[in-house]
C-alpha cells in the first residue's frame, strides 16, 4: 500500500479524522502559545507565572479562567505551554528511540548469528527492568528537567521497536527481491536501506504513533512522582501532582478543588487519545487480516 493511499484512508475514517482534528487543535495551541497565554518573562516562557504566594488553589475566575493550583500557578497558562512540552517530549523521544530501535533491530536481523545474539541479549537486559522504575532511577541521577526526562525515556524505550523491526526484517529478508538484490551484488547498506527498511516500516509507524501517547504519559508520570519537570515548569503531569493532595476537597464539599485535577487530566487524556485513535485506525487500514 502506498503512503498516499494510507493518508487518504486515514482522512476518510471518521475516528482517525477526529484524532487528527484534536491533534491539529493541540498544534494550533502549541504554535500560538505566546499569543494565547503571553509569558510574563519572554526568556522563560515555560515557567508558569504565579498569581500570588498562597498555598490554597483558587477556583476559576475572571483573571485565571481555569483557576490556580497550590502555590497559585495559573492552570490555563500551564495547559497552553504544557502542550508544547507534550509535543516536544513525544516527537523527540519517539523519533530518536524509533531511529535507534530501527537501526538496532535491522542490524541484528540482517547480520544474524553472534551479532544478533549479543544485541538481543542486551535488549533483554534493558527490557527486564520495568520501564517506569528504570526511568525514575535515571532521571533521579540526571536531575530534574525535561531534557533529562527525554534522555531517560529514550534510553529505555527503543527495545520494542528493535524487536519489532528485527522480526519484520527477518521475514522480509527471505523475500525474493532481497535475495535477488544480494545476488546482483548490491552492497549491505543499500540493501538494508532501500529494500528492507522501506518494506517494513509501516508496523513501526503504527507503533510509533501509539507510543506518542504512552511516552507523554510516562513523562508526566515522572513529573507526577516529583522527579520529572522542575516545579513550576509548564507540564501537565506536574499540574496533576499539584492536585494530588487536594482531591478530597474540604469538609462538606468533596469536589471543591475538582479543577486542579480534571482540567490537566482532560488535556493529557485528549492528547493521548488522539494519537491512539490515529494509531488504531492506521492499524485497521494496514492489518491484512481485517481487509
Amino acid at each position, binding site marked *: 500500500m502506498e503512503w498516499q493511499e494510507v493518508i487518504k484512508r486515514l482522512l476518510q*475514517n*471518521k*475516528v482517525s479524522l*477526529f484524532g487528527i482534528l484534536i491533534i491539529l487543535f493541540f498544534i494550533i495551541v502549541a504554535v500560538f502559545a505566546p499569543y494565547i497565554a503571553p509569558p510574563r518573562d519572554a526568556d522563560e516562557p515555560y515557567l508558569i507565572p*504565579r498569581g*500570588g*504566594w*498562597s*498555598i*490554597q488553589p483558587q477556583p476559576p475566575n475572571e483573571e485565571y479562567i481555569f483557576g490556580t493550583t*497550590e*502555590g497559585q500557578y495559573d492552570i490555563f497558562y500551564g495547559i497552553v505551554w504544557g502542550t508544547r512540552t507534550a509535543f516536544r517530549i513525544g516527537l523527540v523521544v519517539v523519533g530518536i528511540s524509533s531511529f535507534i530501535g530501527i537501526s538496532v533491530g535491522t542490524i541484528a536481523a540482517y547480520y544474524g548469528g553472534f551479532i544478533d545474539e549479543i544485541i538481543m541479549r542486551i535488549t533483554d537486559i534493558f527490557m527486564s527492568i520495568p520501564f517506569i522504575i528504570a526511568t525514575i532511577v535515571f532521571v*533521579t541521577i540526571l*536531575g*530534574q528537567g525535561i531534557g533529562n526526562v527525554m534522555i531517560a525515556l529514550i534510553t529505555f524505550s527503543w527495545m520494542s521497536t528493535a524487536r519489532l523491526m528485527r522480526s519484520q526484517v527477518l521475514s522480509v529478508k527471505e523475500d525474493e527481491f532481497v535475495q535477488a538484490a544480494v545476488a546482483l551484488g548490491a552492497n549491505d547498506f543499500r540493501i538494508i536501506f532501500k529494500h528492507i527498511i522501506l518494506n517494513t516500516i509501516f508496523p513501526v509507524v503504527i507503533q510509533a504513533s501509539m507510543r506518542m501517547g504512552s511516552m507523554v504519559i510516562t513523562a508526566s508520570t515522572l513529573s507526577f512522582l*516529583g*522527579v520529572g519537570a*522542575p*516545579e*513550576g515548569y509548564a507540564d501537565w503531569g506536574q499540574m496533576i501532582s499539584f492536585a494530588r*493532595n487536594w*482531591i*478530597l*476537597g*474540604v*469538609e*462538606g*464539599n468533596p*469536589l471543591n478543588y*475538582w479543577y486542579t485535577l*480534571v482540567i490537566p487530566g482532560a488535556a493529557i487524556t485528549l492528547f493521548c487519545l488522539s494519537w491512539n485513535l490515529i494509531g488504531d485506525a492506521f492499524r485497521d487500514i494496514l492489518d491484512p487480516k481485517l481487509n
Partner: protein
Amino acid sequence: MKKSYWILLLVVIIAVGGYFYSTQQQEVVEEPAQEEIVQEEPAEETAEVVNPDTFTEVNMGNIDSLDPHFQYDTSSAEIVDNVYENLIRFDKGDITKFVPNLATEVPSEENGLIQNDGKTYIFPMREDVVFHNGNSLTPEDVKYSFLRALIQDRDGGPVWMIYEPLFQVGSLAEVTQEVVGVENPSDLSAEQSEEVYNYLEQAVEVDGNNVVFNLPQPFPPFLSIISQGNGLGAVIDKEWTIEQGGWDGQPDSIAEYTNPTKEDDPLFDKMNGTGPYELVEWTNGESTILKRHDDYWREPASIPNVVIQMVDEWSTRKLMLQRGDADIVYVDKQYMSQVEGMDGVEVIRGLPNIYMGAGLMNYNIVTEGNPDVHSGQLDGEGVPSDFFSDIHVRKGFNYAMNYDAFVEDVLEGDGQQGRGPIPEPLLGYEEDSLTYSFDLEKAEEHFRQAFDGELWEQGFEITILYNSGNDVRKLAADMLKNYVEQINPDFKINVRGIQWASYLDKLIANKFTLGFIAWGADYADPHNFAVPFLRSDGTYGGFKGEDYISWAEENVDPVIDEGISTTDPDEREKIYKDLQSLAYENAVDMYLYQPTAQVIMRDWVEGWYYNPIKDPGIYFYDLDK
C-alpha cells in the same frame, strides 16, 4: 455505520462534561443536605470514643532507628521518649523547669548537687525502678549508658551534644586524637582503647547511689541536654544490651563498637527501657505498636495500647482523623484548611516552635564548574565568587524579601519573621530587636553601593537552588527573584530545583549561592542556635566560605565561647543579645521565619500539652481519652 462513531464520541464527551457540570450544580443545591449529614455523624462519635483502649497517632515517613543513642530525628525520638527514660525531665513542657525522673532530685546550686562552680553534677538515683524485661535499674546502668553513647558516637549522630559539655570537643575522634593521636576511633588498638576509655570514664562516675558528672568547665545547658526527650541521655540496661551483642562494657573494645552502621547496631530494632510503654512490634514505614509497662515506677499509663502508624498519603490520614480511627494526625501546614472546622476534631495552632528557617549566603562561592554563578564574574552576566562577601549585597537581599507576605501567605499566619539566629523564647531573643523589613528602596540603596557601584551598572545573574519537593523553600526563592528583579532590570535571578543528592553535594562542595535551610532545637538553649548559624566551624557557618570563617573566628567565636562558659543568666542574656545584633548588623544570613506548630486531634483526647523541644513527638503517658 460510520456515523455512529461520531454520535458515540459526542455522547461520551457530553456525558463526561455533563457529569462534572451537574456535580458542580448539585453541590450548590445539595449543600444544606450534606451539612445535615455531617452534623449527625459526629454527634454519635463524640458521645462514643472509638477504640478507648488504644491511642492511635498517624504520622508519615520512616523511623530512623530505635537505638536511643543512634537516632537523631523527631519520629525516632518520639518512640524513644516513651520507652526509655532520662535522669530528669521538663515539667510538662515548661522548658525552664526540671523535675526528677530516674534521679530523685534535680541538681542545683541550692540543694548542693551542683558543686565546684557548676563543674560537678550529682544525681541521686531512684530505687525500685525496673526495665521492661524485669531487670532493676542501677547507677551502673546509667554510667554504662552514657559511656556507650560516647563510644558509639556514630557519624552524623547526636552524641556531639554531650561531648561538648563533658570534654569541650565535638566527637570521639577528637578525643582519640588528643589522647592517643589516633584519627579514626575504629583504628584504636586494645591498649589505646583502654587509655581513651580511662579518659572518658572520669567524666561519669558512680558514687554509692549517686551518679556524678565532672565537667571541665561550667556549661549552663548541660541539664537541658540530658533531659528526657533527648535520647542520648536515655538509660539502657547494661546486662540486656550486652546480651543483645551491644558494647561489652570492656575498656579495650572501643574500636569494635564505635560508629556502627544500622545493620551492625543490635539496638536498631530492639528496645528495653524503664519508660511507661514497652515496644511490641515495629514495622518500619508502617507501624509501631507499644503497650503499657505495668511495673512502671509511677502509676501505669492510663491508655493500655499505643499505635503509631506511618501513612504518607495525606488523604488517608485525613480520613482516619474524620472517622475517629486516628486520635492525632500529622497535618502539613498547607492542608490545615481541610481540617479546620471538622466535627469532633480539635485544632490548636500557634504553638511556639523553637526553629529557625534562614537563607544562607555563601561568601566565597566556588565558581569553577559551577553553572549557578554563570560567567563567574562581575560583568552583568554572572556573579563573582565573593558576591556575598560584600555587605551591601547581603543587605540588599535582606531588604528585598517580603517577610510579611511570606508569613501571611506561605505560613498562613502561623509564624513570625526571624530576628536573628536565636528564636523565641530562648535567651537573647528580643521582641523589638532590630531586623530587616521589606523595603525595596533601602534594598536599592545598598545594591547601588555594592562593589563601589559597579554591580548596579553591570547588573548580575545568579541561580538560587532549592531541594525539589520543598515548596516553602521554592516559594522563598521565587519571592526573592520577583522582588530583586524589580529593583534593577539588569538583575537576574534564576530559581532551580535540584534533587536532594545534588543539593547536598553543592553545599559540601561550597558551590551553593544562596540556599534556604533550617535548624530545629536539639535542646533549649541559645547556644544550640548560635553555634550552627554563626560559629566559624558551625554546621552552617562552616559552609559559608573562607571570608566568613576568618571574620567569624575573630568576631563571633570568642563571644560564643564566653556565652557558654558564663553561668549567670543575666550576663548570658546580654551576650546572646550581642550575638543577635552582630548577626543583624553584618547581615550574616537572611533570618526568614520562625514557624509555629499545630496539633490536630480528636476532641476526646485529654491531658495533652505542648512540649516545644519534643514537637511533634507525643508523650503518651499523660494522655487519656
